[in-house]
């Protein structure tokens, strides 16, 4: 195996000193001279016609600098996927959910802005509203959007192989339903932004976003500006989980306010506004039929799913495709069909969240695998091994597993959890369960149809030769991507990590599609490697000329030039370097020629040494409609074992331990990989156990804070044994692939299977509140005459 100097270690994160000392700057820490504060007027009604808007009283309030409505912002539609643009910055004719934006104010203080918002008079004509899929699909249901009969936002119908045949040839056929609840991302930093125009008309938007690039394009489009005149900067960000993966209406409103006032304007969401904007995980209602042979061979999956979409499409069109495309793997399966429907209603729009589209389908299906195993008397772990895909396999919907450490993952959790000893031998009330999953390492295609590079990176060597500057427009949002790219740059250049300075999250630095679909390590990683190789090549070419040795006979490692065979005499170069530094005390004395010397000489010969790198995936996927969604240059995979205790009297479930193995290709930074695994498990547990956005009958979120919307606390987190499994991914930089989302896939079903093992009950609806589990246990006791 190749030895690495920088990657594949537990290097300290480069943002740790800033974060540990409180010096990390987030949007809300930033202030500008003369800055104004913005506030939004959002609809109190779930569905209403706007008859009139009177802003005169608000405009007259002292300290108010601008009040804007759709009259100012226009009617340009935007959204996530161009084919599905269905939002305007401000409501024009009607509002579609409680929270729909109607107007915005900029004022000298937030107090004044909020007071002014209250002074805006809107006359509404209340329209009937629908809040469920069932109500939205009724014949006489009010329609949210023209051109979407029955409030159907999107539907997908796919069949691979022959499902009917597959089921006919099955010995066991199981049909179950599964339903989750609408989620909130519950990131710690609420969205915020500052928009400002300079005197030349260039707009800079500083925002808490995962995707500076998409925000830049959306802002440019909606404001009618050149992309080159819009700069989006992402400072430190307190997570996003998918919710910050598109432009939000506040960002756009803020730009319009800055344009109108010609002053910097800052806006922030409060926590209840975060809940109002939503854009997190949908509520999915799955019905899956799975067929298998007596020996455990999986034959076919028939899959139907209904997505409760909310008022707009947002990521929904991608979600409804992902839900189908990411189900079959990581198992060999020839026949799979999918019918997916996403339905509009008068609740906030749902979007993408960690494990986009695929998490609840997996929760349904992986339970069925356990049911099949039970029926045929097979260890569920064995059943999975039997059906598992291997490196090089392609799913029936054309997803190619160019590396796949699935069996290593299963073996790792088997050993790590002591599965063989525990399965079937747990005392009453205690249980053990497992599940597997896989996920994309970056979407194979950008959100807008384009041949664009998915990432470009610049590596520039400083003139003294000592330091390499890495510029990437990628988004560090807490996951550790800056550190990963600094490590990749250092490894590739052959210099220590301390000699890298990295700047990211700024659209002026290049193109990067951003932090979503677990894409950055692979894609931005590639571009970084490419750029660093380019810079390194330029240095070595100068050296080759100067020392009269072929480029191929040289390499750079740990900051020194390595020569194959005997090193040439480089004393002339060294003298030249030292002459440049009279009075300096740290001139090189080493036996080997240093990178610093080589790179300085290169600068003297050629001027700035700038390496440029880029990446886009090769052509991926099949030819059928929707084939693009789910494609990726590589797939991560994982297996998890959950151990639980169920209180048979109260229904309380305690998760005692999670053993988690994930194949992330080559781990660039082992600690970061484990961090993502732990984080995924924690989010998965939250979804399984507690999380649920609850609405009242008027479509208002009832639990719009983190007291009543319950994410896991440290007290709820079990021991997580995170086992990193490495494979050599041919399409990844140094063989690296994803861990950010794939690691959440098995969590929910592993817990559900463990609960069944402990209590004998199968739960088909989340979350597992004590009450829900209690009722299931009561039902089970009644059915089985247990007192």
């Amino acid at each position, binding site marked *: 195996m190749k030895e690495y100097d920088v990657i594949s270690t537990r290097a300290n994160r480069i943002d740790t000193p800033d974060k540990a000392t409180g010096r990390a700057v987030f949007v809300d820490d930033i202030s500008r001279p003369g800055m104004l504060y913005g506030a939004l007027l959002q609809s109190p009604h779930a569905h209403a016609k706007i008859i009139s808007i009177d802003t005169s009283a608000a405009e007259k309030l002292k300290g108010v600098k601008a009040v804007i409505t759709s009259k100012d912002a226009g009617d340009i539609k935007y959204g996530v996927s161009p084919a599905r643009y269905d939002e305007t910055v401000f409501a024009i004719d009607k509002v579609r959910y409680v929270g729909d934006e109607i107007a915005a104010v900029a004022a000298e203080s*937030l*107090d004044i802005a*909020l007071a002014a918002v209250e002074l805006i008079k809107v006359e509404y004509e209340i329209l009937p509203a629908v809040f469920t899929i069932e109500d939205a699909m009724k014949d006489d249901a009010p329609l949210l959007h023209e051109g979407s009969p029955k409030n159907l936002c999107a539907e997908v119908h796919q069949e691979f192989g022959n499902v009917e045949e597959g089921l006919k040839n099955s010995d066991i056929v199981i049909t179950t339903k599964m339903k989750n609840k609408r989620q909130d991302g519950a990131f710690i930093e609420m969205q915020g932004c500052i928009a400002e125009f300079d005197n030349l008309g260039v707009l800079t938007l500083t925002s808490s976003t995962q995707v500076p690039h998409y925000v830049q394009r959306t802002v440019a489009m909606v404001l009618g500006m050149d992309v080159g005149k819009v700069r989006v900067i992402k400072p430190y960000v307190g997570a996003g989980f998918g919710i910050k993966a598109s432009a939000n209406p506040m960002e756009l409103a803020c730009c319009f306010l800055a344009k109108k006032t010609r002053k910097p304007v800052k806006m922030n969401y*409060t926590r*209840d506004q975060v809940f109002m904007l939503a854009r997190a995980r949908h509520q999915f209602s799955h019905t899956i039929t799975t067929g298998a042979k007596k020996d455990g061979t999986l034959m076919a999956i028939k899959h139907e799913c209904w997505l409760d979409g909310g008022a707009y499409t947002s990521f929904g069109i991608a979600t409804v495709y992902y839900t189908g495309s990411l189900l079959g793997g990581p198992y060999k399966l020839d026949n799979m069909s999918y019918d997916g429907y996403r339905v509009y209603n008068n609740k906030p729009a749902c979007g993408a969240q960690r494990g986009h589209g695929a998490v609840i389908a997996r929760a349904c299906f992986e339970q069925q695998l356990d049911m099949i195993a039970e029926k045929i008397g097979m260890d569920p772990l064995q059943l999975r091994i039997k059906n598992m895909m291997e490196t090089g396999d392609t799913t029936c919907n054309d997803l190619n597993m160019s590396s796949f450490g699935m069996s290593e993952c299963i073996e790792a959790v088997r050993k790590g959890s002591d599965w063989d000893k525990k399965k079937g031998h747990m005392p009453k009330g205690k249980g053990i369960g497992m599940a597997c999953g896989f996920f994309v390492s970056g979407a194979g295609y950008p959100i807008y149809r384009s041949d664009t590079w998915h990432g470009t990176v610049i590596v520039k060597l400083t003139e003294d030769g000592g330091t390499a500057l890495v510029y990437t427009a990628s988004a560090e949002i807490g996951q550790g991507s800056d550190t990963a790219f600094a490590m990749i740059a250092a490894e590739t250049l052959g210099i220590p990590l301390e000699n890298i300075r990295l700047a990211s999250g700024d659209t002026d630095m290049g193109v990067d599609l951003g932090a979503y679909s677990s894409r950055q390590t692979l894609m931005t990683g590639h571009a970084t490697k490419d750029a660093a190789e380019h810079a390194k090549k330029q240095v070595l070419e100068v050296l080759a000329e100067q020392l009269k040795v072929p480029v191929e006979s040289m390499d750079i490692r740990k900051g020194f030039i390595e020569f194959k065979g005997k090193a040439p005499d480089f004393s002339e170069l060294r003298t030249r370097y030292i002459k440049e530094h009279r009075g300096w005390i740290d001139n090189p004395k080493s036996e080997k020629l240093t990178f610093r010397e080589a790179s300085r000489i290169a600068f003297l010969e050629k001027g700035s040494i700038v390496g440029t790198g880029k990446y886009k995936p090769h052509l991926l996927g099949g030819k059928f409609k929707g084939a693009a969604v789910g494609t990726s240059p590589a797939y991560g995979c994982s297996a998890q074992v959950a151990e639980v205790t169920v209180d048979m*009297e*109260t229904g*309380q479930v305690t998760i005692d331990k999670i053993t988690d193995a994930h194949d992330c290709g080559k781990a660039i930074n082992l600690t970061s990989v484990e961090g993502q695994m732990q984080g995924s498990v924690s989010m998965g547990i939250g979804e399984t*156990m*507690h999380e649920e956005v*609850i609405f009242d009958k008027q479509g208002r979120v*009832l*639990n719009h804070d983190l*007291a*009543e919307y*319950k994410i*896991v*606390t*440290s*007290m*709820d987190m079990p021991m997580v044994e995170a086992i990193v499994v490495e494979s050599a991914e041919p399409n990844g930089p140094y063989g690296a692939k994803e861990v950010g989302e794939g690691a959440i896939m098995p969590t929910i079903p592993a817990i559900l299977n463990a609960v069944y093992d402990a209590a004998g009950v199968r739960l088909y609806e989340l*979350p597992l*509140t*004590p*009450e829900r589990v*209690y*009722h299931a246990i009561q039902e089970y006791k009644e059915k089985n005459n247990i007192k």
Partner: protein
Amino acid sequence: MLLPKFEFHEPGTIKEALELKKKWSSTARFLAGGTDLLVHLKKKIITTDHIISLQKIEALSQIRDNKDSVEIGACATMAKISGTPVIKEKFSALKSGVDNLGTHLIRNRATIGGNVTNASPAGDSLPALLIYKAVVLLESLDGKREIPIEEFFKGPGKTDMKVDEILTGFRLPTPPAHSGAHYIQLGKRKSSEINVVNVASFLEFDPKTKKILNTRIALGSVAATPIRALKAEALLKDKIAEEASFYKAGEIARTEDCKPIDDFRGSAAYRRAMVGVLTKRTLATAFELAGK
């Protein structure tokens, strides 16, 4: 969500605090830890023109062991109560109540007086105060007043306190020998939780006959105020302290003593069922502790 504007007062004595309160009357509110008050102000659930902080009044945060009773100042924080030896040794149900309230950060600020004045049916320290027969100590410029805690709660957020009164603390008689008590709260997660049901039980028994001499059971989150399960208590009188009795008491508490409602935190049916389970479990543990 911004705090509304108000005038802030910081008296050094109870008397000064009472004078300010008399002056501003219902347009003023006392501030102890602020973990309810500030939240309610930010959410615009309440408004106020004046805030009278009690944080500078040392006398209010004392905990005194009088041997036959213990006096807990209204402004004693949950963290302080939890760390006080006499509470740990003799009032374990109260300790467990205050330990289950909120998070470390909240417990460092939240006071027992604030928890009682807030009078949430789910309040974590309230069931324990009920089963330890706490006496509420009140003071106004006209003098002092004492009232049993059972009579103090009038509804969610409502108490017997008058506009010009201050809550100075609680007196809890020291539990007799051969007695024990326990508290269990049930929520959806393990910390920072608003209870779905919470129950505290006290039990005193005769070690010779094993008969129950005295028992008090308090139920939270199943009525407009925390309540005593009087029928279950009556049933236990003179019964042998054993699993079967505790189970029966739980059944009575579940079917006859509580009147829970449905809300988004839990259904009435589940709350009822849990009253049964938690009553049984708290009694069993109280008995176990009484035997020690």
